[in-house]
């Protein structure tokens, strides 16, 4: 067990969820007699969930900052129909339409951010209003009709990496992408290790690093193999590519930039953040605005995939996105959560959905199971908070010898209570 802990080092939180995901995949692979990990099914899984995962990226930032956004489904639908209409009526080319959609998302986000950050209305209320508002706008501008989009725009939601170069039996671009990913993982790991050594920080032993790299890269190569060997005309899907780029960008923003730090600070302790010079209003505004931009993007991808925009697009998406974030280890009270965790949380839900479908479990039972999984995940989170601020992932890691993680300092807190009382 100690070896496992070493293997995943500081990132035990993410490991817990990845572990659950892998277990789930193996479970379904066995019980669907191998129908889970086929190229067709995996591609399908990504295509059918990429827009929820994109929403989860924005949602985790909103939840880290201590808010919630209930309007993302409606915003996605409104942006979707607006873009579809703009293409039909104004004859915008696809790239201009995408730009238009992102701009509209930004505008909507500014509206919601204004009420949340500067007027001080709880985001729950603002976005509940937004949920009604933008659903209404969707049906108003679309006259409750379905508006089709042209084929070049559909590429956004249902396109694949094209076939180029020599016939290898694989999709060459997908293979290239997989190899780049492998190289990236190896190089960044080695670089991080070198700097850590240079700074005199503790680094795990070489065998730990090598095992870790082998495991991660094996997973990447296996996924590459699945994506590159699908039925002709399919390969790594465009929505998956967009998702991958967004995960990289937002993962970087949340972990390594000033604004990312500020989001965690505001969500973790708003007063402390303000007294350290963080402009919490600005942070809240940007987080809400960003969410609506991503909702717009998700809406466009969905429209591309379903070839048309309709009055009931995006119903219930907010709930899927929120569920993904919480399963992914974010705390209800803010300040905790990661982009990659939310993606994994979303994948857990997606794999569950997909696997149960393959097993022939009805929609009724699927919903019951999903509901219980969400409840269990958040129940652990709440329970752990009463036990001293540990997230669900920390709980899962108990078995891996990290039980003392973040135990509160009992003596100090009582001393302070007393000095306050007197």
């Amino acid at each position: 067990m100690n070896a496992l802990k070493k293997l995943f080092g500081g990132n035990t939180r993410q490991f817990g969820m990845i572990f659950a995901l892998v277990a789930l995949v193996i479970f379904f692979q066995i019980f669907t007699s191998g129908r889970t990990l086929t190229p067709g099914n995996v591609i399908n899984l990504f295509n059918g969930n990429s827009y929820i995962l994109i929403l989860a990226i924005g949602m985790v930032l909103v939840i880290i900052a201590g808010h919630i956004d209930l309007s993302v489904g409606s915003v996605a639908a409104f942006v979707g129909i607006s873009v579809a209409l703009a293409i039909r009526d104004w004859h915008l080319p696809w790239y201009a339409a995408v730009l238009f959609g992102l701009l509209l998302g930004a505008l909507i986000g500014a509206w919601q951010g204004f009420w949340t950050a500067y007027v001080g209305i709880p985001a729950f209320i603002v976005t509940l209003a937004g949920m009604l508002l933008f659903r209404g706008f969707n049906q108003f501008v679309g006259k409750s009709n379905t508006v089709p989009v042209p084929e070049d725009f559909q590429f956004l939601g249902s396109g694949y990496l094209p076939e180029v170069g020599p016939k290898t039996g694989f999709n060459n671009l997908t293979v290239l992408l997989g190899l780049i990913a492998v190289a990236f993982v190896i190089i960044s790991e080695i670089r991080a290790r070198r700097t850590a050594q240079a700074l005199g920080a503790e680094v795990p032993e070489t065998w730990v690093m090598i095992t870790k790299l082998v495991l991660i890269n094996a997973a990447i190569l296996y996924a590459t193999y699945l994506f590159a060997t699908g039925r002709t005309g399919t390969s790594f899907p465009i929505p998956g590519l967009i998702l991958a780029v967004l995960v990289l960008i937002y993962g970087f923003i949340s972990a390594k930039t000033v604004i990312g730090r500020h989001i965690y600070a505001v969500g973790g302790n708003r007063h402390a953040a303000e007294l350290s010079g963080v402009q919490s209003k600005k942070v809240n505004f940007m987080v809400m605005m960003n969410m609506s931009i991503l909702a717009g993007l998700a809406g466009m991808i969905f429209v591309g995939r379903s070839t048309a925009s309709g009055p009931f697009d995006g119903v219930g998406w907010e709930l899927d996105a929120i569920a993904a974030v919480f399963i992914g280890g974010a705390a209800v009270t803010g300040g905790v959560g990661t982009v990659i965790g939310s993606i994994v949380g979303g994948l857990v839900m997606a794999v569950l959905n997909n696997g149960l479908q393959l097993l022939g479990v009805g929609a009724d039972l699927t919903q019951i199971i999903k509901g219980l999984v969400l409840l269990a995940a958040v129940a652990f989170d709440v329970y752990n908070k009463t036990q001293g601020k540990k997230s669900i992932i920390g709980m899962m890691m108990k078995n891996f010898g990290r039980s003392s993680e973040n135990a509160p300092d009992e003596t100090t807190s009582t001393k302070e209570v007393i000095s306050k009382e007197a």
Partner: protein
Amino acid sequence: MSTPITHQDPILLEMRSITKEFPGVKALSDVSLRVKVGEIHAICGENGAGKSTLMKVLSGVYPYGSYDGDIVYQAEVQQFRDIRASEQAGIVIIHQELALIPELSITENIFLGNEPVRRGIIDWAEARKRSIELLARVGLRENPDTPIKEIGVGKQQLVEIAKALNKSVKLLILDEPTAALNESDSQHLLDLILGLKGRGITSIMISHKLNEIEQIADEITIIRDGKSIETLNVKEDGVDEDRIIKGMVGRTLESRFPDHTPTIGEVFFEVKDWNVGHPQIQDRLVCKNSNFHVRRGEIVGFAGLMGAGRTELARSVFGHSYGRFISGQVYKDGKPITMRSVRQAIDAGLGYVTEDRKSLGLNLLDDIKTTTVSANLKKISRGMVVDTNKEFMVAEQYRKSLRTKTPSVEEGVSKLSGGNQQKVVLAKWMFTDPDLLILDEPTRGIDVGAKYEIYGIIQDLANQGKGVIVISSELPELLGLSDRIYTIFEGSITGVLNKDEASQESLMKLMTSSRKAA
């Protein structure tokens, strides 16, 4: 005993050698208290002496079994399980923070949890009738249907007393009843307490305002460091404020401070005519015409009792982060400067270490290195990107120089002890390289050894030519650390004493009265 009310034992309450422990701390040790029937008994002590803890033991907040010792009330040993049990016995406590619900009316508040019921339905007519009687008894002329939020704090305090009277109170406990009141409201309340005494209601009063105690109390019990020191009879012992102060502070001073010879430069920071309003209450000022200055290399103390306005003053200067700014001017190096946000204050070279480390000073979810750089991310960033290597190096450097005890700077701050948490907070502000660092209760909840180290850090900062302001409730700490001490009382600066002329007595005097020092 001049006026024996009945022929029974004139002692209403006796608390016998009460000891209350929290994990790692003995809050009360062998405390005894005797309260006679029909008297006003004051309890005095410094912040943290254990007064409120004692009252919580009495009122059942800390239930029977969680403390050692006996509570004898009306000649019987009591075993209160909760507040309800003590209230049934006629003991009612009125806390410093009033427990009224702003949206409900006076009547509804008085009868909350105690509603007159007829056939399962609240009899509001009866309640209203009785509340008019109760309001008359406390001398409050208000419509009983008025919502609580529409009457001032002084009147709210009277509603609390009316509520207590409705519970047929025999022993009324008032925790800092006049802390939030202005002079005339305070006087009215004191008169009322005297009036209640005339009707046979016994009161225990906790107060920092010694003039009030001297005015109305019959007996005074002094508590210091969780022990009962003495009980004084105001008339017989001829007690005055100086006598009470002596009892409150009379501990022996050990050498608890590192040696330090200050090198004090010229005045570089000045605040003039500083007026700040209360954030919620319209006409209340939390800082009244305050003037102070700090010299380079100087450690300036701010003494004042809780609620005197020390923190309010510091935070309002620090980028208007508290209250409504009304007027005043800050000068730095002779030039007037304006700081309307915390960011501007930090950029102007100020730092502020909060009094309440856990709720205002730290993000307990963070680790040490993120906390250390959190107030000055710019310094370790290129563009918008944080250089995590530099972050690690900075945190590591402060860990070594401040000797923070932790396995690594990647550790969560919630896992550190109070003293080490405070070192991380200090590191965070030292990294902003301030010219003036304001420390609000820098050693609260910290053990003696760590205190010594924190004092050393503060002195080092002063040696580097920075100005340091230390706000503290512990007078020995201020006396040991400061080169000069300002005293604050009810939002006004009442005096300034140099190190050599300050003593606990002289400070306490200035902290508890509005008399200006000569």
